[in-house]
C-alpha cells in the first residue's frame, strides 16, 4: 500500500469569519509533480500553509506523508522543503552561513550537509557565490540560494508556492530541469495561477476556486479554458 503524500478530508480553514478553505477533500500520491491551480484568494496558499503545519485547520482531517501536521509537526517539518514568494535567507550572512544555519536547525550530519551543498550549488551554478553576503547578490542568485536551502535536507515533499513568479529566465530553466529530473524521486506540489506553466510541468492537478475544489484529475484531462 502506498501512503499518500497529502490527503485531506473535508478540510476547513477560516480567517476570523472569512472561510478560506471550505470542506476541501483531495489527495496527492507520492512522487510526481502535483499542481494546485486557482486565481488569487482561491485558498492555494492557505492549503500550502496547512500542509506545512503553519496553520491549524478548523475542521476536517489532513495527513501529510502519513503524519498529522498539528500533532506530529516535527515529523512533517523534517520531510518538507518550502520555497515561497519571499527569500528565507539572512541578508547579513553569507550564502554558506545561511545554509549551515538551516542545516543545524534540521540537525543534519556535517558530512551529508557538505556533500549536499557541493552537489546542489554545482547544480544551480552558485558555487562561486558561497562566501558572499546575501545582501550583495542579485535577486536571481538569492532565489537560487533559497531553492538550494529548501533542498539541502533532501525533503521527501517539496512545496513550491508560485515558484516561477519574478524568476529570471536562466534560473527558471535550471529549476525546471531539476524538477523534471526528480519527478519520480520526490513529491512536489506547485501552486500557480499561471496555467501554461502548470499544464506543462504537472502530472496531476487540483483547481480551487473560493476555497472549494472545482476539479481534479490527471493533467491530460485538464482543460485550460476552464
Amino acid at each position, binding site marked *: 500500500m502506498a501512503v499518500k503524500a497529502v490527503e485531506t478530508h473535508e478540510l476547513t480553514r*477560516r480567517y476570523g469569519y472569512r472561510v478560506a478553505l471550505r470542506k476541501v477533500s483531495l489527495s496527492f500520491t507520492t512522487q510526481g509533480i502535483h499542481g494546485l491551480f486557482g486565481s488569487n484568494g482561491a485558498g492555494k496558499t492557505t492549503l500550502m500553509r496547512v500542509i506545512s503545519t503553519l496553520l*491549524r485547520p478548523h475542521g476536517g482531517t489532513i495527513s501529510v506523508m502519513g503524519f498529522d501536521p498539528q500533532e506530529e509537526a516535527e515529523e512533517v517539518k523534517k520531510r518538507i522543503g518550502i520555497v515561497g514568494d519571499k527569500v528565507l535567507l539572512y541578508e547579513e550572512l553569507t550564502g554558506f552561513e545561511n545554509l549551515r544555519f538551516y542545516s543545524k536547525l534540521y540537525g543534519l550530519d556535517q558530512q551529508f550537509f557538505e556533500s549536499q551543498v557541493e552537489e546542489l550549488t554545482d547544480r544551480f551554478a552558485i558555487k562561486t557565490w558561497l562566501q558572499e553576503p546575501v545582501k550583495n547578490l542579485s535577486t536571481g542568485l538569492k532565489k537560487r540560494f533559497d531553492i538550494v536551502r529548501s533542498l539541502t535536507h533532501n525533503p521527501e515533499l517539496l512545496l513550491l508556492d508560485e515558484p516561477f513568479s519574478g524568476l529570471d529566465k536562466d534560473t527558471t530553466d535550471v529549476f525546471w530541469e531539476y524538477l523534471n529530473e526528480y519527478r519520480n524521486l520526490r513529491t512536489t506540489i506547485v501552486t500557480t495561477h499561471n496555467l501554461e506553466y502548470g499544464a506543462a510541468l504537472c502530472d496531476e492537478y487540483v483547481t480551487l476556486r473560493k476555497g472549494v475544489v472545482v476539479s481534479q484529475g490527471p493533467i491530460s484531462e485538464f482543460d485550460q479554458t476552464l
Partner: protein
Amino acid sequence: MSRNRLIILGITAAISLLYIYMTWIFAPPDVQLGEDVRIFFQHVAPALVAYGLFGGTLLCGIMYLWKGEMKYDIIGAVTIKLGLLFTTITLLTGMMWANAAWHSYWNWDPRETTTLILWIAYACILAYRASVSDRESRAQFGSIFGIVAFPMVLLSYLSIRIWDTLHPIVIEPTGLNMEVEHMMTLFVAMIAMTLIGLILVDLTYRIDLANEKLMRIRMERS
C-alpha cells in the same frame, strides 16, 4: 430573556439591596476611621472582583488557544473591559479611603502603584487588540498577551506582602482581621459585587457576540 436570567437578576437585586442596607446602616462605625469605614466595602469587593475578572482573562486565553473557538476570545475581551471598570472603581474608592485614613489622595504606596500599573497593563491589552485588524490574529495574540500579563495581577495582589506598606493587610493567613459585623458586611458585599460582575459579563458578552455576528454577515454579503 430566559427564566433563569430573571431569577438571577432578582437574586442580585435582593442581595444588592441587602448590601446597601448593611454597608450604610447595619455596619457600625470603625474605632479609628469612624463613618469612613463604609468606603472600605466599596473598595475591597470591586478589587477582588477585578482580580477575578483578570483571572477570567487568563482562563479564556488558555481556553481559546486550546479549543480555538471564537466565543472564548469574546469573553476574554469582555473580562478585560469589565476588569478595567472594576479596577477604576477600586482606584477611586481607594483614593477616597486613602484621603480619609492618611490625609492624601495618592501616596505612591506599593499597593496603589501596582494597582495603577495593573490598570495601565490591561488598558494596554485593549489598545493592542484594537491595533490588530485581522480577527484571527487578534484573538490568538490577544489570548497570548492575556496569559503573559497575568504575573502583574499576582504581583499587585502580593505587593502588600513584598513591600512595607501603609495598606492594611486584611486577609491574614489566620483569618480575617476585623470585626464580626464588618466581616458579615464584606461577605455580602463580595456576593453582590460578584453577581453584578457576572451579570455585566453576560450582558456585554451578548452585545459583543451580536455585534460580531452582524459584522460577519456584513462581510459575507460584501
